């Protein structure tokens, strides 16, 4: 008779456990790297990264597969022609203020061995300027009137007007595609073609396999004309949850991780691992408290409280932003001057942000008629309390923490902040519909400051607060066109000064993205514009 004892299943479990744990752990390969990332690339093909495909996952992978004509240099200067480094184009010259000529590097090859030619560039910009294919790119490339080939290796860009970012527009938004593989396909057919899953690029790495939801494997491009990468195998391992990414890193299952997010304890845990180091890099994000200029209940009317600049200035001066930033980000962020993320070159030379001044804040509020007449700790005027709703998305741990600190600091000033954490789509809906008093927003910016027109001009597409000062519009237009000031930084500083003076928002934080990388890697350079772009120059220590 079979007798069941507790030892029977326990022994089986122990045996199974021994089997699975007895096998050697993570495979090790000398010249490989496993990078943790949060987003699954779906279509890393230039001209196809529109709408949902304009994701960081696609853009970062595309930078490994496809080379641009020129790359942004370490200064990230997008104005003028000097801040760029040659890539597919070995040089560029100007015929006049409206014509830019690129000479392609004759060594450049597609991963199938075919030379990269001017025809490829012309073909790519035809697709990129097709509104049915790439409406986002059409808007970004609107000043380019034509792209033509002169022989095999020369490409001529013509513009509708003179402006400082002509070279940036020609090189940053669309990397060339292989015309010899794609020109026989109808433009709308590329997205459904096998080219998306098996792209042939000109970049340092080629796509080996894409395991959905798990990882993307890249192999070094043996024919890469700027030199075969030292790291020959790259795994982009996908884990959408930040805790899972951190666990994968700390358990030794990965070599690098993008954007270690606060709480600061995450950084400390990484620093405690002697095999890892943190690499802070200027981010493209800026966070701010955006004041609605219009009444949420009646958008045709000014906001009953926030249309008064004295209240907006009082809130700005009432906050100790340096303290807020230190509390949430530690040393990995700064208080910005104006809506400027660390990636924007215009922040250099800009003034520093104002510090907390409670006396001035109280004086401004009193001048605006706000006082605590009933002694309940909240200011009031004509029987109306100084209460404001603060909306933010639940998805952002940083903003959740920041909102509570803001609430507490403003409470001491007599302003009652009602923190409203909203599900992300609901937050977007409230924001775009103008249904808020104060919005704790964060914007992701391109390296070009011209994008500021979207949020801070009267007709800006993302101007959710309906802030409008024609003088700012004029200053931005002049800065974009490079008019007036010999140094473009000065023109942009004028823009920032005016925005700060109007106080349409309190600019709270401009963080660094903190990357974690194993110490065994050498020559580690992480580009703010595209973090893993220079992976081809990394090497592994002996």
């Amino acid at each position, binding site marked *: *008779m*079979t*007798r*069941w004892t*507790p030892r029977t*299943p326990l022994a089986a479990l122990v045996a199974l456990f021994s*089997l*699975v*744990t007895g*096998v050697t*752990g*993570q*495979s*090790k390969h000398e010249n490989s790297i*496993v990078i943790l990332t949060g987003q*699954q690339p*779906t*279509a890393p093909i230039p001209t196809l990264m*529109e*709408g*949902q495909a*304009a994701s960081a996952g696609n853009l970062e992978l595309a930078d490994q597969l496809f080379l641009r004509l020129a790359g942004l240099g370490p200064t990230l200067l997008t104005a003028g022609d000097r801040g760029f480094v040659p890539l597919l184009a070995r040089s560029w010259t100007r015929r006049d203020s409206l014509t830019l000529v690129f000479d392609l590097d004759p060594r450049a090859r597609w991963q199938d061995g075919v030379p990269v030619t001017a025809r490829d560039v012309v073909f790519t910009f035809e697709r990129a300027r097709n*509104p049915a294919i790439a*409406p*986002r790119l*059409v*808007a970004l490339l609107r000043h380019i009137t034509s792209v033509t080939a002169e022989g095999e290796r020369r490409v001529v860009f013509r513009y509708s007007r003179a402006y400082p970012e002509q070279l940036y527009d020609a090189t940053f938004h669309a990397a060339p595609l292989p015309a010899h593989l794609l020109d026989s396909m109808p433009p709308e057919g590329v997205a459904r073609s096998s080219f998306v899953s098996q792209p042939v690029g000109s970049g340092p790495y080629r796509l080996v396999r894409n*395991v*959905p*939801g*798990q990882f993307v*494997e890249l192999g070094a491009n043996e024919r890469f004309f700027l030199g075969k990468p030292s790291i020959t*195998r790259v*795994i982009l*391992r*996908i*884990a*959408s*949850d930040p*805790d*899972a*990414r951190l*666990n*994968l890193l700390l*358990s*030794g*299952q990965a070599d690098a991780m993008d954007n270690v997010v606060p709480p600061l304890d995450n950084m400390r845990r990484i620093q405690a691992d002697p095999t890892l180091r943190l690499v802070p890099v200027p981010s493209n994000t800026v966070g701010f408290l955006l004041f609605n200029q219009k009444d949420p209940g009646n958008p045709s009317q000014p906001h009953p409280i926030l249309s008064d600049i004295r209240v907006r200035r009082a809130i700005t001066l009432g906050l100790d932003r340096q303290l807020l930033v230190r509390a949430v980000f530690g040393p990995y962020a700064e208080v910005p001057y104006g809506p400027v993320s660390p990636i924007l070159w215009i922040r250099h030379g800009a003034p520093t942000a104002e510090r907390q001044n409670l006396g001035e804040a109280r004086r401004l509020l009193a001048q605006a008629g706000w006082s605590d007449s009933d002694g309940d700790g909240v200011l009031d005027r004509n029987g109306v309390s100084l209460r404001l709703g603060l909306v933010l998305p639940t*998805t952002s741990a940083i903003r959740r923490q920041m909102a509570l600190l803001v609430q507490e600091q403003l409470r001491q000033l007599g302003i009652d902040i009602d923190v409203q954490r909203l*599900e*992300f*789509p*609901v937050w*977007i*809906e409230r924001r*775009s519909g103008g249904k808020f008093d104060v919005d704790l927003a964060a*914007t*992701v910016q391109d390296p070009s400051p011209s994008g500021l027109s*979207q949020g801070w001009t009267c007709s800006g*597409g*993302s101007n959710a607060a309906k802030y409008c000062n024609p003088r700012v519009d004029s200053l931005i237009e002049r800065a974009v066109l490079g008019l007036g000031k010999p140094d473009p930084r000065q023109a942009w500083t004028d823009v920032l000064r005016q925005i700060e003076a109007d106080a349409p928002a309190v600019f709270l934080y401009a963080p660094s993205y903190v990357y974690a990388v194993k110490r065994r890697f050498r020559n580690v350079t992480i580009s703010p514009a595209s973090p893993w772009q220079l992976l081809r120059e990394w090497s592994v220590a002996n």
Partner: protein
Amino acid sequence: MVGRELSGWLLRRGLQAAAAFAIALTILFFLMRAAPGDPLSRISEGRPLSPAEVATLRARYGLDQPVTQQFVSFVGGLLRGDLGVSIEYGRPVTALLAERLPATVLLGGSVLLLNFTVGLWLGVRQAVRRGRREDRWLTTASLIGYAMPSFWLGLVLAWLVGIQLRLLPAAGMQDPLLSLEASFVERSIDVLRHLVLPALTLSVVSIAATMRYQRTAMLEVLQLPFITTARAKGLPDTVVTWRHAWRNALFPVITLFGLWLPILVTGSVFVESVFAWPGLGSLAAAAVWGRDYPLLMGASLLVAALVVAAGFLTDVAYAMLDPRVRLA
């Protein structure tokens, strides 16, 4: 006669299941549209879309149509096996679900297997040894297991076993550096190693519940006269326990099985996230956050189908196990 009765019963139950599925589908579709939030919101998270982009995307996903028209289009597509294209991923929903289903089936199946082997066996042992030290210990352990939040347990296991002891992978489903030439056995062991922690996390709670149900059901059956008769006939304890008592104590557990089946898809969202397990749960959660209507409908329909199927299978199992249950 019995055959005709059975096929009639199956037909009736099948029609009821189809009706339940159709009702669930309709409610789900309109509830999702009624919820606040725009499906294009996630796309415009970092960079606002131009009006031209918004118009193009709305037309592409049929969002510019009236809701009733969208429903008709959806049902038409469903009948053709087409669930539409995910707004988030830009790929057919059926392809996305098919990619993620194996991982979910593997994790859910492992949990069910552990649950209904270890859980049942421990529950029976407890009942047979009622009041003894082993029963008391297992009762305490099951209550602790049942009360333990899976999100906490998952984080602790990943930290302890994955990071501190480095006995098992802290997350993921396979080692991406494993050679492409690795044998099937090597790959299987690799997946098994990755499976242990998420499966254990999910199993602790479910096993505890099964143990409690099974123990209670067994205790009731063990007091019935036919068990006394079996013992009086001199049958061995094992035969009395497993052949006579256990079979009659299975009904509550079958009900529990029917309830667990869909929960293992929907209830593993957190565990899939913490362990970066590439299953349906995390895909469905992302669809909810992004209001990805087509993907959300696809995932929800899968769950609805599982619920209906589980109910159907439970009824069939009841009828098969107990001749007293009429096919009615």
